[in-house]
Structure formats: structure tokens, C-alpha cells
């Protein structure tokens, strides 16, 4: 079936799905209804899976009557122990023992119900009455049990595939706090969340997205805290996702974000279950995607990208200090190169005379204007970072050394750049890595370049204009109806307690009210009120 533009419209898609199950589109002629003959049903499976070498069709006969049955599953996605011991063994051997003990033989008509009730020793089973539903289950790693005489197929859960163990977070390491991170298996990830929060109000809903990949996408929220309007909005936006494949939460992010014309992340991405749970308890919604070790948290404000879990685990003075450090670092990372260019090019008198003289002496032999010098060095360090990011560790060290020498010494000796510029580039690079969220850090590094251009054209006035433009962009951003610059603009006094400073826990007795939680208080009593009464 050809996918026309009209079908891309989500409204039309819903209608289409009802009439024409997407995964069977390639073979329109196949009848999706099932018959009561094992052989015929098996043929229908084989029409799709017959060419694949990992599909297993295991035919066998059941009981003394020799009722034809078959198992269909994908090798590698299932746990063969479960199939051998809990399904095949009980169906082929134990059932005959049962027949003998009861002194009756199973008839074709009642075989299906009998098996369902007595013979499959597996916790989770389901029934499928159409081929497409059944096929989807098989492709997700379940076992289809076809029994003669029934138009339904029994789906037995025997999932078991090679998966990475829960390991330490790579991009969000912490000194203090739990060290587990999400893995690629959705079920493991939801289990990690449940382990952290035993509230039965935490709802994990799952839908399937991706025309062909049929990826499980779960969204998690806490009933009674999360704003129902927000949940509705998340559902609405998730249902608009219409792509062939979903490999990563990043793809979902790009579909559901508010503004595509912004370098700034509008959802929070995390691989830490503890961060996810505490955000859920603040009234946000988390989105998990099967095969991705990252969770998306919406809505997100700028201030969230400066938070690290340790802020809450350490004492508040330390947490506040670190927060303050990160905010300052972000300003440094974005503005220092531009300020340098502006001051050197237009306003050298801004600096104290000895410093201005020292920089001037450094720059005597440099053939380039400050902008070119800064631009060269910034590009070099971006190249180093990018090449280091994907290299194996052994080679990565080499790049580190080469980079250290190139940037630190050779560039200066070759007369391409001045030592003060090297210092500056190093400081900005370090500062840009202080920000705990990778995607926010990269956005800050990116806006450095337009700011540098503005500084080169208009000096400090250009930097000021850049600052204004950046702020205009930030205040006009929204994330799921949540103002991006909250609690700064608009000012939400209550929420500023957990912003640049992280005040003591007993003062954070309310959830962030800018997220509009249904249940605002997270502590029993307002400590102020208590003090006031006492």
C-alpha cells in the first residue's frame, strides 16, 4: 500500500489503522482472521516469517488423540528454558500423565481451554484472535501456541533476549547517590522506577509508536500529582508521532518539542532513575522508550539543566554553591570569548593597564585580528572534543595528548595564537563541561559563535545585543505550556527556593507550582505555619 501524504495526517491514520493493520501492509492479500486449523494458521505465519531463518515453527501432537499443535517464536528473543520446561515438556509429556490419571482423553473441541487452564506453566499468558495482533506479540518475543480446533491463539510470555546489565550512568555520573542507570530494556527501566517509588499511583502507560519498528513507548506519571491537562497534552503529542522507526528517545523529543528552531533542549533527558522519580514526584511526566537508556522528562525549564542529583543529596550550602558555580560557568562559557574579542578589538582601555599591556605584548606577533584568533582556537577545541567523544579509550588518550600539545604550546610557538587566548579557550571549554546536562552544554557552546561574530562587528554593544537576543529567545520558548525561564521570567517566588540556590529541604515544602501539580504540598505541614502557631 502506498503511503500518501494524506495518510501522514494523524487524523486519517487512526481510521487507516482500524481497517488495515500496518504491519501487514506488505501482504495485503493475507486474510488476518484465523481459522481453527493448525495447518492453515501455520501457513499464514509462514507467509510472513517463512523466509526468515530465526523464526521457529515447532509442530507437535498433543495427548493420546494426537491433536496437531504448533509453537511459533523468534529464536533469540525467547528464553529456551521456559519453552522447553514450561511449555513443551508440560504439553508433550505431563499432559499424557494427566490424561492417564483422570482417565480421559482430551478432545479437539476442548483442547484449547484445557491447555490454557491446565497445561501451560507460565505466569503471563494472553489470547489473540487476529493474525496481526498475534504477529506483533511474536515479534516482541512471545511464543504463539496454535491449537487445532480453536480460532484463538494462545500467547505465552517467554521473553528473554540478550540485554545489557544495569550499569553506572555514563553521562550523568555522581559522587553521591545511587549508581544505577537505565538500560536498553523498557521493562528493566520501569522496574528501576518502581524500585525507587512504591506509590501505586505511579502509572506506567504504554503505547506503540513507529510504523514498522512498533517500539514500545511508555509514559509515566503520578496520579494525584501530575496536572491532568499535562498528561492529556503528552498523550496528544505522542499520538502525533508518525515515523517508520524509533530508535532513541531523541527521536520522540524532536516530535513532541515546542520549538524546532532553537538550539536549547526543551525536554530534560536523563539516564538516572532517581532523577526521573524525583521529577515525577514534582508533577512532571517521564517518557521511556524501549531500546533507549534515556528518559525524557517534560515539561522542562532552563533551570533544570543546571541541577544535578547531588544538589539534593548533599547539604544545602554545598548544593547551592555548586548550583551557583554552574550558572556562572554557563555565562562564562557563552560570553567570555565574545567579551575577549570585543575588549581586545574595540575597548582595550576596559582592562587594567598592566593587564592590557601584557595582552598587547603577547599579541604583538600574532598575524590575525582577535576574532580570527579566537574563532580558530574555538573551532580547534570543538574538533578535539568531537573527535575524542567517539574514539576508543586507547586512541582517545592520544588525541588528548595531541590536543594538549597543539593547543597548549605549538599554536603559541607557531605564532598563530597568543597564550592569553589559549588560557581563555581552556577556561571556556572547562566551563562548558560543568553543566550537568549534555544537551544544554552543547547549546551554550553553540551560541558562543554568533556572540563572537556580534562582538567582532559591534564590540561590547554587540555582546549586549547578543545577550538581549538570547534572552528574548529564551523567554519566548515554552515547554508543554511551561515557561522556559521560570522561575525567573515570569517570577514565581515560591519556586525560586530551588533555583540558583537550593534552600534547605524543610523550606521546599511545596512542589514547583509552575508545573501546576494537583497536590501542591509535598510535606505535611508548612513549617512556617507551625512555627507561627507554636
Amino acid at each position: 500500500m502506498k503511503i500518501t501524504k494524506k495518510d501522514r495526517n494523524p487524523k486519517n491514520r487512526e481510521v487507516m489503522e482500524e481497517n488495515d493493520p500496518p504491519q501487514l501492509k506488505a501482504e495485503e492479500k493475507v486474510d488476518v482472521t484465523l481459522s481453527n486449523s493448525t495447518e492453515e494458521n501455520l501457513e499464514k505465519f509462514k507467509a510472513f516469517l517463512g523466509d526468515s531463518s530465526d523464526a521457529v515453527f515447532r509442530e507437535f501432537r498433543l495427548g493420546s488423540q494426537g491433536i496437531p499443535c504448533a509453537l511459533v517464536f523468534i529464536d533469540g528473543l525467547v528464553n529456551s528454558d521456559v519453552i522447553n520446561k514450561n511449555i513443551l515438556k508440560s504439553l508433550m509429556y505431563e499432559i499424557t500423565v494427566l490424561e492417564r490419571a483422570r482417565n480421559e482423553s482430551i478432545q479437539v473441541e476442548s483442547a484449547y481451554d484445557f491447555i490454557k487452564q491446565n497445561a501451560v506453566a507460565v505466569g503471563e499468558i494472553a489470547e489473540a484472535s487476529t493474525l496481526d495482533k498475534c504477529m506483533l506479540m511474536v515479534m516482541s518475543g512471545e511464543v504463539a501456541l496454535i491449537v487445532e480446533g480453536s480460532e484463538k491463539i494462545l500467547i505465552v510470555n517467554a521473553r528473554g533476549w540478550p540485554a545489557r546489565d544495569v550499569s553506572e550512568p555514563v553521562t550523568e555520573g555522581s559522587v553521591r547517590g545511587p549508581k544505577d542507570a537505565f538500560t536498553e530494556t523498557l521493562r528493566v527501566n520501569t522496574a528501576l522506577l518502581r524500585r525507587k517509588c512504591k506509590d501505586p499511583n505511579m502509572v506506567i502507560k504504554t503505547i506503540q509508536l513507529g510504523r514498522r519498528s512498533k517500539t514500545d513507548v511508555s509514559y509515566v506519571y503520578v496520579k494525584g500529582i501530575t496536572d491532568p491537562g499535562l498528561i492529556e497534552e503528552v498523550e496528544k503529542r505522542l499520538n502525533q508521532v508518525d515515523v517508520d522507526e524509533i530508535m532513541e528517545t531523541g527521536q520522540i523529543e524532536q516530535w513532541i518539542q515546542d520549538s524546532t528552531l532553537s538550539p536549547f533542549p526543551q525536554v530534560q533527558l536523563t539516564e538516572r532513575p532517581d532523577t526521573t522519580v524525583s521529577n515525577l514526584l514534582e508533577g512532571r511526566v517521564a517518557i521511556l522508550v524501549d531500546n533507549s537508556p534515556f528518559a525524557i522528562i517534560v515539561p522542562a525549564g532552563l533551570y533544570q539543566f543546571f541541577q544535578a542529583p547531588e544538589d539534593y543529596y548533599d547539604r544545602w550550602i554545598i548544593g547551592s554553591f555548586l548550583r551557583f558555580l554552574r550558572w556562572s560557568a554557563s555565562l562564562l562559557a557563552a560570553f567570555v570569548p565574545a567579551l575577549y574579542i570585543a575588549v581586545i578589538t574595540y575597548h582595550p582601555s576596559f582592562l587594567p593597564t598592566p593587564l592590557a599591556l601584557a595582552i598587547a605584548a603577547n599579541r604583538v606577533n600574532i598575524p590575525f585580528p582577535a576574532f580570527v584568533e579566537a574563532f580558530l582556537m574555538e573551532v580547534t577545541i570543538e574538533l578535539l572534543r568531537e573527535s575524542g567523544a567517539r574514539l576508543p579509550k586507547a586512541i582517545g588518550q592520544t588525541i588528548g595528548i595531541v590536543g594538549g600539545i597543539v593547543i597548549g604550546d605549538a599554536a603559541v610557538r607557531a605564532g598563530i595564537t597568543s597564550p592569553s587566548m589559549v588560557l581563555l579557550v581552556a577556561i571556556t571549554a572547562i566551563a562548558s563541561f560543568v553543566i550537568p546536562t549534555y544537551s544544554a552544554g552543547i547549546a551554550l557552546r553553540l551560541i558562543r559563535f554568533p556572540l563572537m561574530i556580534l562582538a567582532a562587528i559591534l564590540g561590547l554593544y554587540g555582546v549586549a545585543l547578543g545577550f538581549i537576543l538570547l534572552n528574548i529567545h529564551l523567554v519566548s520558548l515554552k515547554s508543554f505550556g511551561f515557561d522556559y525561564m521560570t522561575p525567573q521570567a515570569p517570577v514565581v517566588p515560591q519556586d525560586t527556593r530551588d533555583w540558583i540556590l537550593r534552600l534547605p529541604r524543610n523550606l521546599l515544602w511545596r512542589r514547583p507550582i509552575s508545573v501546576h501539580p494537583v497536590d501542591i504540598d509535598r510535606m505535611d505541614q508548612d513549617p512556617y505555619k507551625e512555627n507561627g502557631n507554636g
Partner: protein
Amino acid sequence: MVKKHDKLGGLQYISLISTTILGVIVISLPKIAAESAQEGALLSTFLAGVLVAIFAVSMNILGRRFQKKTVIEYLVSLLGKPLGKFLGVILIIYFMFSTSLVLRGFSDALKGLLLHSTPLEVIMVSMLFTAVYLSLNGINAIAKISELFLPIIILSLILVIGLSINSFSYVRLRPVLFPPLWRTVKGMPNVITAFLGYEIILLIIPFVERKKADIPRTLIGIAIPTVLYILLVIMAVGAFGLRPSQQINYPTIALARIINFPGAFADRFDIFFVILWILAAFTSVANLLYISSLSTVRLFGLRNYQTFIYILTPIVYMLAILPQDLPEIRKVNTYVGYLGAGISMLVVGLLIFALVFGKKEHENG
């Protein structure tokens, strides 16, 4: 739940008023006050603030009688169509001239202070472009930017005032402590031009949450610039003396220049202050540009103000670039000042008119 426009909060209302007033003139206010009111500099600044507060409160009360209407619409319902529309046009002309004056004043000052060899046009166009970008984002973005920049502006001024306290001398301040009344009154029209922009109240009340646009908040919005202006005059006169304050072009910048603290990364605090002053100037230009286009749209009874920003911007630019030299700018400034005073008087008159005869309109509005 994803709303396009939220109603503005109380703090946003305050900051919109304060940031529109605090603008280009911050750097030359002590000179204006000292020049025009002589020994009455301090008192006239204070009295100007009080007078502006009275006007602002009148505008606030009048505006709140017509909850969903801006001045352009309620002028028509108060005075009838021909007269109301005519006054609306005058108001728009006033806003546009104000925008261009602020823009020109900013560009001239910045050229003198920071970018000596950059063409005036480049400064103007870049500033105007930034203001257009903000205006296109609507009243919510403008309010948020005001809210964001107001603390920075206040803090920078407090820093300048606080750090130059070393140079302050009570002896130099003494002449302005005992002001002659006539001089004070004579200087007031000029000093009031420093408060240009508070007319924004006429237009933003419909966008503010019903109970948040009250009189105390209006007074705070006026009090913030008034207090800062008074402190600036005290500091400048106290540091330089009254006569020198009249001679120095930008006394506030001069104050920043004499700041000296050891171990600082910046030798000249004044440049640092100029950068922050750009923010103050920007909020004035952007807010005024926005209310110009908003009032134009309302005059024609249309909804989409964005197109009018594109139409107004070249006109504002032309108005700003036309005056050849400082005397011409001064002349325009004076006329605009008179116009502003006239409008404010008119509002007070209208308020009395509305209070006496306007019961019906109130119910309708």
C-alpha cells in the same frame, strides 16, 4: 492547557512601567536636573516623580474602568468617534516620536561613549531590529524581558551609586538642599521628560490580571525610577558639585568612571555600566515600539499587530535619523515633552469627566 497568552502578573506590570521609564536618560538625568532647575535639582526631581505618580494613578484608574479596552478604544467611547479617534491619532504620533527620540538619544550617547567610529545608522538599525524581534514575540515576552532586566538595571544603578560613595561630599550637596521654589517649578517640565514612557499604563491594563493592576503597584512602578533618579542626583551633585554637574554630559557615566576598587578585572567600571545601560535603553525602545504598534492596531480595530510593527519601524527610523544635530533633537524633545504633558493633563481631565458623567460607560465596559 497550552495557552497562547497568559495574563500578566503584578510584578510584570510593575517592571513594564519601571523599565519603560528607566532608559536612555538615566545617564544624563543629573545634568538635566541641575541644568534646568539649578539649586532645585533635587526637589524638582522629587516633585516630578510625585506629579508623574499622580498622572500614572489617574491613568490606572481610568484604564481599570474599561477593563477590556485600551486607551484608543475608551477614548472613542468616552468622547465619541471623531474626537476620540483624533486624540488616538495624536497619542500614536506621541508614542512614535517618543520611540524615535529614545532611539536617537541612545544611539548618539552610545556612539559618544563606546563606538566612536561606528556609523550612527548601524547602531540604530541593530537596536531597532532587536526591538522588533522582541515586539513580534508579543506582550508576554516583553513583560518577561522587563521582569528579567529590571533587577539587572536596578542593581547596576545601585552599584554605581553605592561604589562612588567615596567621592561623595556633603558640602557639595548643600546648595540643592535648600531649593528656591521658583527655580524648582521652572525646571520641572524638563525633568518630567526623564519619566517619559509611563504612558504605557494607558495600553497595558487590559493585559494584566484583573486585580493585579492596582494603585499600589502603579505607585511602586513609578517609585522605583523616582528613587533611583533622586539618588543619582544626590550622588552626582555630591560628587562633582552643582556647576560641574551641569557641564558633564553624562554624569552617571562619570560617576561610574571614578569608581575604583583594587584587584578588579575591569579598570573602567563605566564601560561595564554602559553595557548594562544598553539593557535599560533597549527595554524602553522595545516597549515604546510595541505600544506604538499596538495603539495603531487598536485604532484601526484590527487584531494582528505584527504587520504594523513592520510598517512602523521604518517610520520610527526615519523620525530618529531626521534631526541633524543636538539642538534639533532638543527642539523635538521639548515639543514631545509638551505633547506628553498635554496628554497627561488630558487623562486627568478625562478621569474627572468619566467620574462625573461616565457611569454608563463603566457598566458597558
